[in-house]
């Protein structure tokens, strides 16, 4: 408990009102774009999937920087390390699944 002290002034930045609002607006925009495209059948199936994936990737970045404060982290950068490891696992999960499942297509 010693190091977990809610009374002393924290050295971690918790962001400002402005950055939270920007992050909030950005993530709403990034959510509305794919919904609009899907609901109105605006693009071909292939293109729709690509747009959704790009928006999801951007959403991820917005969350990390505006809400998770990745760039304000003090050393040692455990969060960044965890993120890098997480991305490696994510890549393995996605690429590995595509590779394995390409042999296992159901009729």
């Amino acid at each position: 408990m010693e190091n977990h002290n809610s009374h002393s002034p924290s050295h971690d930045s918790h962001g400002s009102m402005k950055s939270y609002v920007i992050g909030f607006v950005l993530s709403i925009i990034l959510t509305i774009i794919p919904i609009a495209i899907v609901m109105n059948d605006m693009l071909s199936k292939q293109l729709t999937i690509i747009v959704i994936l790009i928006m999801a990737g951007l959403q991820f970045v917005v969350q990390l920087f505006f809400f998770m404060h990745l760039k304000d982290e003090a050393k040692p950068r455990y969060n960044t390390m965890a993120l890098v490891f997480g991305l490696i696992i994510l890549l393995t999960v996605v690429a590995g699944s595509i590779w394995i499942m390409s042999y296992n297509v159901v009729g």
Partner: protein
Amino acid sequence: MFQNLIDFLLNDFFITGDPLILGAQVSIGLSMVAVVFALTYFKKWRWLWTEWLTTVDHKRIGIMYIIASILMLFRGGVDALLMRVQLAVPQVEFLHADHYNAIFTTHGVIMILFMAMPLMFGLFNIVVPLQIGARDVAYPFLNSLSFWMFFFGAMLFNVSFVIGGSPDAGWLAYPPLSELSGSPGLGQDFYIWGIQISGIGSLATGINFVVTILKMRAPGMKLMKMPMFVWSVLSSCITIMFAFPILTVTLFLLFIDRYFGAHFFTLDGGGNPMMYINLIWMWGHPEVYIVILPAFGIFSEIVSAFSKKKLFGYKSMVFALMSISFFSFFTWAHHFFTMGSGANVNAFFAVTTMLIAIPTGVKVFNWLFTMFRGKLTFPTPMLWTIAFIPCFVVGGMTGVMLSVAPADFQFHNSYFLIAHFHQVLIGGVVFGYFAGLYYWWPKMFGFKLHEGLGKWAFWLWNIGFYVCFMPQYALGLMGMTRRFNEYNFDMGWQPLNVVSTVGAFIMGLAFLFQVWQIAHSIKFYKKEPTGDSWDGRTLEWSIPSPAPLYNFARVPVVDSEDAWWEEKQRLANGGKPKPLAPLEPIHMPKNSAIPFLISVSFFVMGFGFVWDWKWMIIPGAIGVAICMLARSFSYDTDYYIPVDEIERTEAALGGTK
């Protein structure tokens, strides 16, 4: 109306018509009455609530984890014995096929998720803060929440065998059998909700201990000076953090299939059941390393303590632990070589599987070299460690045999596989946690367990293990496959099956010896004279047993890997005791009822989802929301223990002034 209710209770709600289950229902009912009566008679309700149910103390949470896991070991063990009785004689119906399916499913789920995991978390809780010189874990509230989520998840899973029906689609619930088309009953819903609720607890524990280890070490304890058990916990918890979300998502997709009629894993409508198998093993394989890595840490501590030597190859041990936790994410497909993913996929995963055996081999040599020319003693924790090494080496070797993809087409789903994973899970995980339990028992309760009875239990466990599982390797090669309840006389499998069943009952007897050992040691309670029961090496032995609420009156300063041992050596060589810093008020977390209440709400919600009763889902969900709100607005969560109270406690414990 009333008649309808009775009909519902007898036909759908409670499982009826099986004498074994009726016996279980009666005994559960009787023991609940007995517990309620005892608590009321001895006026212990308030004590139970304030001292245990609402506690955030890591030592008490650890003890509750261990009690729960031993109860689950009993249940899983009874399942195992029932299966062995059924298999001892060909062509009998001791358990009919459906019941047998339910029993092997619950045996698997309970032993891994509700026995091994909580026993491991219990040891984490008790040992890690004491070994790193901390007052508690990083998030004590979250720690309590983790325990109660696990507990109520486990309860939700366990009620299924008396209410509604057990899951019976195997411990990993492969679709399409686990889909609504294959399992229209409620068992599979109990499975999903029980595991999901307890999974939240596991994930939270993983995060909690990573933060605790990274942020709350005593001054001077650099990462490379941590005790090896702490390293093993770190590697295990990192694996939990990345593996458990995969399980949650996979089971959630299965839930959407079952509840909303989606088609992720169905055979029609564009679904693909093989995707489930691919996803679940991305969690399932790291999971086996999650449970074995802490056992490696325990063995490292014990080997070093009872050889009176520094652990051999500290750096290589750390490297081995961390590389296992990394590589464990790259081997999952070896669980389904036979699914038909082509030669390239199988070759890749066969190689990664063989690679991961290398760091494990490194560890075995490190333990052997630690013992080499050490001053060895053999109390029960060391016995389990000695027994583990050959057992795990053989289990590991058969694992490498299974990793050879072409050969696996022969071994797959046979009793050879069953024997292999029981050998690594019992010989590695169970022996490891038993070793840890015997080793840290005096630290938890302030008395040692009776050595003589412990040795009986040890030998019975070991003999029973080999008698039970060695024949199963042979049975596997003779063609006996897993998961069927009957075989014909002319298969020639009976003799070895009888041997195997005898072995299982020897292990059951060994468990009874352990229960007797605990009861005997409580009855003839002999308080440990010091906090250092085994002449230990790490910080947990520098404080009284059991540890006071705040663990360390003064935060220790560490300058070497075996801090307490080095300090004792220094004093023995005529070194002066270090000057004591003045006591300061200690900042501690307050107890909270919210973790218990939120988990009860989750239980209610999960139970409602299983039966699809909106009138139960909604209040449960509201309960969860209210608890979260209440927690968000509660600011009074900590307090300080004043110096004079610390002085009084320390004086009563005979500690230094």
